[in-house]
C-alpha cells in the first residue's frame, strides 16, 4: 500500500489527483488485473462495455504506449503496473479555479500530446495520411457498412485542411509529409482541450456524482 503513497508523491500527479481517487483507481486496477501486480492488454480487452467503442483498440494501446509515461521512451510495453496506469489517467484531470494560464497551456499541450500519440502509430513524430485515414476508418467502424472510400475522402479533406492552414503556400511539387505536433496543436486550438478532455471522477474539488458503478 505504501508504494501507492509514493506514487502520489510523483511531482507530476501530486497536486491533481486526490488520495481518495487514487484509492478508487487502485481498487479498480485490482479488479481489472485479478489482484495481480500488472495488467496486460487482455485484461482491458475483457471489459464488456468497451466492446461498443469504435476506437477500443487505440484506447487500450494508449495505456501501453511508453510515450505517455513522460519518460522520453518510445515503443510499447506488454504489461503495466499501477503507477503507469495512474500516469495515463492523469492525462484526464480537469483544470481547477487555481490553475494559472501557463499551467492551462501546459495541460492543453499534454492532452494534445496524448491524442497525437494515439494517432501516430508509427512512432515517427508525424501523423501521415495513411495513419490519419486509419483514424477516420476506425471512428466510422461501428457505424455500419460504410466502406473505405468515405473514410478516405474525409481523411483526405481533413489532411488538406491541416496542410492549407499551416503551410499556406506550397509549390505543386512539394510534399506535405505529415501532421507534426505543432500543426496538430494549431488545428485543434479552437477546441480548448483542457476544458473538454477530462473525466469528472478525477477532479479534486468537485464531489463526484456517481450515477453507477460497474462491477465488472
Amino acid at each position, binding site marked *: 500500500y505504501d508504494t501507492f503513497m509514493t506514487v502520489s508523491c510523483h511531482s507530476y500527479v501530486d497536486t491533481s489527483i486526490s488520495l481518495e481517487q487514487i484509492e478508487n483507481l487502485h481498487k*479498480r486496477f485490482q479488479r*481489472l488485473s485479478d489482484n495481480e501486480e500488472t495488467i496486460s492488454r487482455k485484461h*482491458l480487452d475483457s*471489459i464488456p*462495455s468497451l466492446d461498443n467503442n*469504435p*476506437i*477500443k483498440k487505440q*484506447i487500450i494501446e494508449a495505456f501501453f504506449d511508453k510515450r505517455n509515461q513522460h519518460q522520453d521512451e518510445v515503443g510499447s510495453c506488454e504489461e503495466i503496473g499501477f503507477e503507469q496506469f495512474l500516469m495515463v489517467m492523469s492525462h*484526464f484531470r*480537469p483544470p*481547477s479555479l487555481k490553475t494559472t494560464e501557463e499551467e492551462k497551456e501546459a495541460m492543453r499541450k499534454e492532452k494534445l500530446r496524448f*491524442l497525437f500519440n*494515439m494517432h501516430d502509430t508509427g512512432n515517427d513524430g508525424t501523423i501521415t*495520411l495513411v495513419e490519419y485515414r486509419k*483514424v*477516420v476508418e476506425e*471512428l466510422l467502424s461501428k*457505424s*455500419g457498412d*460504410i466502406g473505405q*472510400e*468515405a473514410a*478516405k*475522402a*474525409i481523411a*483526405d*479533406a481533413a*489532411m*488538406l485542411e*491541416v*496542410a*492549407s492552414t499551416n*503551410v*499556406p*503556400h*506550397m*509549390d*505543386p511539387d512539394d*510534399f*506535405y509529409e505529415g501532421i507534426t505536433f505543432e500543426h496538430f496543436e494549431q*488545428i*485543434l486550438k*479552437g477546441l480548448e482541450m483542457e*476544458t*473538454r*478532455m*477530462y*473525466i*469528472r*471522477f478525477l477532479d479534486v*474539488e*468537485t464531489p*463526484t*456524482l*456517481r*450515477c453507477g*458503478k*460497474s*462491477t465488472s
Partner: protein
Amino acid sequence: MAELRLARRSSFLPLTGLMCVLLLVFVSVASASRDVTRGDSHNQTNSTAHKKAFPVLSFNYEHVRKPFEISLWILLALLMKLGFHIIPGVQNIVPESCLLIGVGLLVGGIIKAIGEEAPVLDTKLFFLYLLPPIILDAGYFLPIRPFTENMGTILVFAVVGTLWNTFFIGGMIYGVCRIEGGQLASVDPLSCLLFGTIVSAVDPVAVLAVFEEIHINELLHILVFGESLLNDAVTVVLYHLFEEFTHAGTVTVVDAILGVVCFFVVSLGGILVGAIYGILGAFTSRFTSHTRVIEPLFVFLYSYMAYLSAEVFHLSGIMSLIACGVVMRPYVEANVSHKSYTTIKYFLKMWSSVSETLIFIFLGVSTVAGPHAWNWTFVIVTVVLCLVSRVLGVIGLTYIINKFRIVKLTKKDQFIVAYGGLRGAIAFSLGFLLTNSEMKNMFLTAIITVIFFTVIVQGMTIRPLVDLLAVKKKKESKRSINEEIHTQFLDHLLTGIEDICGHYGHHHWKDKLNRFNKAYVKKWLIAGERSTEPQLISFYNKMEMKQAMMLVESGSTAQLPTIVSSVSMQNIKPRGPARQRAIPSISKSREQEIRKILRANLQKTRQRLRSYSRHDLMIDPFEDNVSEVRFRRQRVEMERRMSHYLTVPANRQETPPVRKVCFESEHKVYTYDDSKSPRGWTAEPDPSPPDAVSLLNESSQRANQSSEHRAKHNDELRAKVPDEKEEQDQLKLSRCLSDPGPNKEEDLS
C-alpha cells in the same frame, strides 16, 4: 467613394422618413374612415328611388379594413427596421430594440395626438401570435451541446434564481409599502408576490434582441438565454398560484405543496407534449419525399400545435415549443431536402424578426396609450430592487454552482449574467392580464419602467461593458472537419476511459443514448438509408455542400481561405509510380482562347434556363436514393445543352472518387458521374466549334488529381493567366470541373 456612399445613404433618409409619415397619416385616416363609409351607405338608401348611374369607381374600405390595418402596421415596423440599418453609425451605439421602442413611443404619441385609440399590446395577440415564432426560432436552432453541458447551471439559475427574485422583490416591496403608507398601504402581500413574479422573470425576447448584437462567447449566451427560456415554467406556475390565492384569500400548507407539484407537472408536462409533437413531426417528415414543397409547413404547424396544446392545459407553452423543436430537428433535417431546410431556416428567422419588431413597437405604443398611475416610491424601489436581487441572486447561486462545475464561472461571467437579465414584453403582457384594477395601473407603470430601464439602459451599455471587461467573444471561425473528427474521437475516448475506470459518468450515458437513438429511433424517424449515416459523414457532406454553395453565391475567392492556399491534394498524396499522362498539355495561348470561348458560352447558357413547375422541385441528389440510371440520364441531358462544361475523364487509379456537386445555375443541382466519361469527349484543344471545347486540357497539366481539390488547382492556374477579369465565371467553371462522384456514395445517403 465614401462620400458618395454616404450621400446616397443620406438621400434614403428623407425618403424613408417621408414614407413613414405617409404611412402614419394613412393609418390614422384609415381608422377615421369608418365614418366616411357609413355616410356613403346612408346616401345610398336615399337615392334608391332614382335610378343611379353605374358606379365605375367605388370606395369600400370596411371590407378590407382589418387585414389592411394589420399589413400597414407590419409594413411600418419593417420600414423602421430598414431605416435603422441604413442610417450609418446608429447601430453601433443603440441596440435595435431601443430604437424600435422609441418609434413605438413616437407612433403612439402621434395617434394619441390625432385623438384616435391606439392599439394596445393585446395579451392574446402577444401570447398566441407574436411570441411563438420567436421561441420556435430559438428552440429549433438551439445549440444542443452547450445547452446540455450546462443544463444544471441553467436550471439552477432558472428555477432557484427566479424563485429568489420573486420572493425577494415581493417581500421587500411589501415591506416598503407598509413603511410608506398612504396610497400604498392597501397593497396586500399576495399582490406584492404576484407583482414580484411578473417582474422577476428574465425575458427571452429582450435577451435575444440584445445579445444577438454583442456576440459574446457561447457559454454566457447559452446561460442567460437558457435561463430565460426555462424560467417560463416557474413564472407560469407562480403566476397562476398567486392569482388563485389572491382570489381565495388564504394560503394553506397543502396549497403550497400542491404548488410545488404543479411546478413539476407544468414543466415536465410541457416538455412531454412538445416531445410528442416533435416525434410526430419527425415521423411525418419521413414520408414527404414526394411532396417537398409542403415540408416546412409540417415543421411550423406541429410546433405551433405543441405550443397551443400546452397552453390548453396551462402547461408551459414555451418549454413545449422548445422541446418540440429540439426533438424534431435532427430527424427532420435528415429527411427534408436542402431547399426545405433553407426555407425553414429563413421563414423562422423572418417571422421571429417581424414578431420581435412588432413587439417592441407595440410596447412603445402601449406605453403611451395605457392608463398610468405613477408613484415615485413604488417605481424607484422596484427598479432598484430588481437590480439588487438579480446581482445577489447570481452571486449567491454561482458560489454554489461553482462547487459542481468543472469550468468555473469567473467574476466577469457572473457580471454579464447578472447584467444580462433583461425584462421584456412577457412581463408586460402578464401585467396586463391582472384583474385587480386599483393596483393594476400602478403595477403596470412600474413594470413598464423596469422594462424600459433594462432594455434601454442595460441594453445600450452592455456592449461597451463587454468590450471594457474584455469578455471573450464568440469565435467566428466555422467548424472544420478536423475539429469534428476530434470532437467525436474525444467522445469515444472519454467514454472508453470511463468504462475502464468503471465509472458511469456523463459520457457513458450520453453514449448509451446515442446508441439507443441509432439503433431504434432513427430507424423509425428517418427515411431510407439516411438513417444509418454516421454523423461524421453527414457533417462532411454538409460541409462540402456549404462550400460549394458559398462559392457560387459569392463568386470570389476572397471568402474562402482554403481556396487561397495553393496546397492541393497533390501535395498530400504520397508519390506513386509515375503515371502516364493520357492527355497532352496545351499552350498558354490556347488556354486563353478556350477560356474566352467558355466565358461567352457560359453567358449564353445562363439564358436557357429550364422552367420548373411549382410542384416538382429539382431532385436533390444528396438525399434521394435515386438510381444511377436517373443520374446518368440527367447528366446526359444537361450535357447536351450545356456542352461547354465538361466532366474530367479521370485517371482514377488510386484516389477514390468523391461525390461532387456542380452548380451551374441557381436553379439546378446536378451531380456528375465521373466514371462514366462523356461519350466522345477527347482531349481536343480545338476551340473552333464552340460546342465541342473540352476543358480537359486545362486541368491536364495537373492530371491525376482527385476530386474536390481540382478547383484549387484551377485557381492556381488562373493566377498564372494574367488577363483574368471574370473570376466569377471562372470559379463557376472550375467548380464544374470537379470530378463527379461515383455512386458508391449514394448508398450512404
